């Protein structure tokens, strides 16, 4: 590269700081402050990628987040690689590596380029019309379609970077730090509002900051100098926070906005270690001022997509801000005055301009006069009809426009060039406004949509509100701010503004050509290769709504979300269908405004912080003793305690046997515990449980079953009457929070007259459950002062006790069928009580057991586990627990539902025991139950809910639900597995100690 395309010193570019980077494997140099795009342009590289469908060569087109073409794969490393990065946004750093996407073998020679020649048979929606024969072949076609689609490549290793969230509550949020945003932020903050100003760029000042022309002045200073002073001032205001490299991604209702603060993407890799890459700002603003500016429109003509064709404003920005000339032979094509600003700027820097093509005829503009004064040829009333140059534009062909602008006349003129700047006027960036629910209106004069009805306390100012010129902005914005912020005065009342911009524009959505449209390729959506003729085809086929056309042609569906072409698509639809643009409406702009990395959205909610990890007070002991853990809700519960060489089965068999033969100990701290107090506590329990509570004596415990209002079993547990008006309820581990929530709901909304208070004490207590024939011996050693005689302390009762000076509650209740005690002690003493029990039980073979053994032991007794043996379709009657449903009580939650015509049926599924023919066959939980395998279709009667090999009974046992099961005792049924059928007999679900002798053993 011998060309010197660097044209001037720039404030943004640090020419003393050279940065090397690689593009497609070749090393180049740029300067600190360059974007990848500006650095590539400085190296005379325009060809960056290939388009999605036709694989046409594409170059850098813009200088911002609206870029459709110049998207690259960043880095090759499997964990850090990143697809679809806009070269116009990424700042270069030492060691940056980027490569072209969607091309093979290379961007210069891409086999996919053949699609360009097949394009006549690949119109919009072609895939809906073909690939249907033979029927089974779609997935084969699809394989190739998928391979050729997609853009970049996903990483294949986890992300090395870290992300963070931050909630911000401010009075005023100002989005965009161009001239409007700076004025707004200063006005807001100086008047006492806690203000946040954000801008996606690394610098402040928007496009005014590089505006160096005598044609635009404020108080007799060149606009950029004036703005620079303002910027220096706002940096000193205390209640104004300024965040650059921060782009607002989403604007939700209630002024809730999400913004990404980019902290390290511009740094060399080695400087990023341990730093947060992106911070997702969750902003809640009382008021929002949107000053997001506007986007320059391209112009739609044949072959308007070649490398070397850029937006005119982008050419100016590269020249003025980055000090880079995009070409040496520049042509500008415009329908408004903006291109002349570019031209003047280029001229000042000594960059050659071949010609300016303006589709307007007679315009009285100071800017044009200045250009003509400098002998630059201006073709007025002309349009570009074609371009040439495969990988870089080398020529434009222009023709004169007819008076009505509908066709071209005269003969073609060719102008050779290496860069074409196009300017189709400006589109206000109303994306965030519409995301927030704002309604737009169409302004006919200059064919733009501008904000109309605001859904929340917010305002749009500057060019995103359709005020494009400096004088319009600085006369309107202060007035708007005064009203919006309730101010008497601003600092900007008497500005003297000079602006030479003539606002006239000749808007032609699809410029006419000398060829029939079928032979042209006027691109509307560059990235997705959607052309004006695709849009016309869609209309011809009956797709009328903008959403239909968009979906059928894929216009606006690329990674740029149609920031450039959507307006043209609308315009072409309106023109073709003969409707008014204002009535067509826009497509919905959906968040995010610019794509947001998943990692940014997730923040630190990854790895160990993906979800909460609840631990019991005895957790550390389980870890020390090598327990395996089971996830139960957010808890980690000890599942089993394998000894050396044991697998799960061995451990569970050993634990189960010990619990019945000697003693077992279980950490039951996860059970929900609700403290219930109040003079109506008994009445309350009567209403929430199926059984009766009023007569429960103080000091006694009772098992209760709770239903949903639909009659289905919801939760269960033991509740103890501690005093006349004081109970403690236990719930299942998983149900703790929802049960409390449901009880509070009834108490507050249905029964506010009841004097009852509920307080969760789940975490206050550690619960150590000791069971087995030696349980009494063990527990009485730990609590020597308590009388453990059956007379004093029978089954289903509780005692207050003390261990040393520490109060605790001991319940004699059992989920295993064994004689057993639960010690509830304040959590911080829980581990110590556990250890004391272990010590006291040592000589009795006390064996810690986990949830798996607990499940086995209770299954031997036929006790249900809500959620395992029930599934929200089981009533207590279905569970054969009729005994717990009070017939006397007038009402309780769910009672009425038990008597509906289908819940009262006798042949519902009922819980039964199942015994296998071969006692060593252990059924699979979840297996279906069938009576007759020859019936077709096979009728499934129910399924196996719980199944274990019982070491105590020395046979396999199972619980299951079976249609009409309670009338099938002793009947033989079949469990059809994939490879065999297992014969079972329906049995009583209580397999062990039906007489409950062991409870007092």
């Amino acid at each position, binding site marked *: 590269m011998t060309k010197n395309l660097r044209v001037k010193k720039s404030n943004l570019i640090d020419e003393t700081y050279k940065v090397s980077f690689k593009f497609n494997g070749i090393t180049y140099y740029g300067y600190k402050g360059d974007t990848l795009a500006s650095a590539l342009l400085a190296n005379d590289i325009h060809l960056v990628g290939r388009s999605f469908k036709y694989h046409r060569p594409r170059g850098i087109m813009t200088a911002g987040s609206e870029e459709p073409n110049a998207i690259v794969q960043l880095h090759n490393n499997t964990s850090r690689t990143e697809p679809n990065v806009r070269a116009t946004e990424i700042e270069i750093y030492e060691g940056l590596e980027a490569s072209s996407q969607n091309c093979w073998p290379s961007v210069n020679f891409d086999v996919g380029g053949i699609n360009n020649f097949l394009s006549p048979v690949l119109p919009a929606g072609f895939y809906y019309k073909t690939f249907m024969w033979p029927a089974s072949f779609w997935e084969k076609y699809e394989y190739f379609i998928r391979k050729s689609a997609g853009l970049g490549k996903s990483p294949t290793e986890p992300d090395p970077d870290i992300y963070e969230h931050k909630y911000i509550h401010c009075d005023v949020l100002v989005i965009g730090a161009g001239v409007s945003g700076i004025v707004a932020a200063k006005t807001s903050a100086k008047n006492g509002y806690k203000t946040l100003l954000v801008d996606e760029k690394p610098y402040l000042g928007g496009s005014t900051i590089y505006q160096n022309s005598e044609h635009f002045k404020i108080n007799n200073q060149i606009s950029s100098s004036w703005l620079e002073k303002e910027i220096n001032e706002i940096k000193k205001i205390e209640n104004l926070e300024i965040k650059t490299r921060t782009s607002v991604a989403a604007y*939700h209702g209630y002024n809730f906005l999400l913004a990404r603060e980019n902290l390290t993407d511009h740094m060399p890799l080695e400087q990023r270690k341990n730093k947060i890459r992106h911070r997702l700002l969750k902003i809640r603003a009382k008021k929002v001022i949107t000053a997001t500016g506007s986007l320059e429109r391209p112009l739609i003509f044949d072959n308007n997509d070649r490398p070397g064709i850029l937006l005119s404003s982008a050419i100016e920005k590269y020249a003025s801000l980055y000090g880079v000339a995009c070409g040496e032979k520049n042509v500008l094509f415009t329908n408004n005055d903006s291109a002349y600003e570019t031209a003047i700027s280029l001229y000042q820097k000594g960059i050659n301009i071949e010609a300016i093509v303006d589709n307007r005829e007679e315009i009285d503009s100071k800017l044009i006069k200045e250009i003509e004064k400098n002998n630059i040829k201006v073709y007025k009333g002309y349009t570009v009809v074609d371009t040439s140059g495969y990988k870089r534009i080398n020529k434009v062909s222009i023709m004169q426009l007819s008076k009505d602008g509908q066709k071209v006349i005269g003969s073609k003129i060719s102008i050779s060039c290496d860069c074409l700047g196009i300017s189709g006027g400006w589109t206000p960036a109303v994306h965030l406004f519409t995301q927030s629910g704002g309604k737009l209106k169409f302004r006919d004069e200059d064919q733009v949509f501008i904000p109309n009805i605001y859904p929340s306390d917010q305002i749009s100012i500057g060019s995103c509100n359709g005020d494009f010129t400096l004088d319009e902005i600085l006369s309107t914005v202060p007035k708007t701010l005064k009203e919006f912020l309730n101010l008497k005065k601003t600092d900007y009342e008497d500005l003297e503004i000079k602006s030479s911009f003539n606002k006239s524009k000749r808007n032609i959505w699809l410029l006419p050509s000398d060829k029939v449209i079928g032979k042209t390729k006027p691109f509307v959506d560059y990235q997705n290769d959607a052309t004006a003729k695709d849009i016309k085809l869609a209309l011809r086929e009956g797709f009328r709504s903008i959403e239909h056309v968009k979906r059928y042609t894929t216009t606006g569906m690329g990674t740029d979300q149609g920031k450039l072409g959507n307006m043209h698509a609308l315009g072409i639809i309106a023109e073709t269908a003969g409707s008014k643009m204002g009535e067509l409406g826009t497509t919905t702009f959906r968040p995010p405004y610019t794509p947001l990395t998943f990692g940014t959205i997730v923040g630190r909610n990854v790895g160990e912080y993906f979800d909460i990890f609840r631990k019991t007070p005895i957790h550390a002991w389980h870890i020390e003793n090598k327990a395996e853990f089971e996830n139960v809700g957010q808890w980690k519960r000890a599942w089993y305690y394998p000894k050396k060489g044991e697998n799960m089965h061995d451990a569970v068999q050993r634990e189960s046997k010990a619990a019945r033969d000697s003693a077992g100990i279980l950490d039951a701290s996860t059970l929900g515990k609700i403290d219930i107090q109040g003079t109506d506590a008994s009445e309350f329990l009567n209403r929430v449980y199926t059984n009766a509570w009023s007569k429960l004596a103080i000091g006694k415990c009772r098992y209760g079953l709770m239903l949903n209002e639909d009659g289905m079993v919801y939760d269960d547990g033991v509740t103890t009457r501690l005093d006349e008006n004081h109970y403690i309820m236990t719930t299942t581990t998983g149900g703790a929070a929802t049960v409390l929530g449901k009880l509070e709901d009834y108490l507050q909304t*249905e029964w506010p007259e009841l004097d009852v208070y509920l307080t969760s004490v789940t975490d206050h207590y550690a619960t150590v459950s000791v069971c087995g024939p030696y349980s009494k011996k063990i527990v009485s050693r730990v609590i020597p002062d308590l009388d453990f005689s059956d007379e004093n302390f029978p089954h289903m009762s509780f005692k207050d006790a003390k261990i040393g000076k520490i109060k605790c509650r001991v319940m004699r209740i059992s989920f295993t069928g064994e004689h057993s005690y639960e010690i509830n002690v304040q959590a911080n003493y829980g581990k110590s009580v556990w250890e004391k029990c272990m010590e006291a039980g040592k000589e009795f073979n006390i064996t810690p057991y986990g949830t798996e053994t607990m499940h086995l032991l209770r299954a031997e007794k036929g006790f249900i586990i809500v959620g395992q043996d029930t599934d929200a379709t089981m009533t207590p009657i279905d569970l054969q627990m009729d005994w717990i449903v009070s017939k006397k009580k007038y009402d309780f939650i769910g*009672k*009425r539902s038990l008597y509906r015509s289908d819940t009262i049926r006798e042949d519902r599924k009922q819980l039964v025991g199942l015994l296998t023919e071969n006692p060593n066959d252990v059924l699979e939980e979840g297996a279906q139950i069938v009576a007759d395998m020859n019936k077709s279709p096979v009728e499934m009667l129910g399924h196996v809910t719980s199944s274990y090999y019982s070491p105590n009974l020395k046979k396999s046992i199972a619980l299951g639900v079976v249609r009409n099961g309670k009338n099938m005792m002793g009947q033989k049924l079949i469990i059809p597995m994939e490879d065999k059928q297992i014969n079972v007999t329906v049995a009583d679900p209580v397999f062990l100690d039906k007489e409950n002798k062991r409870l007092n053993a």
Partner: protein
Amino acid sequence: MFIINCPYCGEREQSEFKAGGEAHIVRPKQPTELSDDEWAEYLFMRKNIKGIQFERWVHTHGCRKWFNVVRDTSNDKIKAVYKMGEKPPTK
């Protein structure tokens, strides 16, 4: 994400609350005397209004109190909040 003005704690973020569906569906005092149809009306049938809806919310992660909200379900704008037992605002 709404901002909900808890009648007890003041304005808080939606994340602190849970929704509880249509308000003013009073649990029948004598369920046993209802027909299956009438019971189903209470249990399952909902107005599911597009427009102004009276609904229940609970400040789960705050004061744990239930209260009522008047919200336009077509645009999610909250018009009023009032405590349980209070009369709904008429305007």
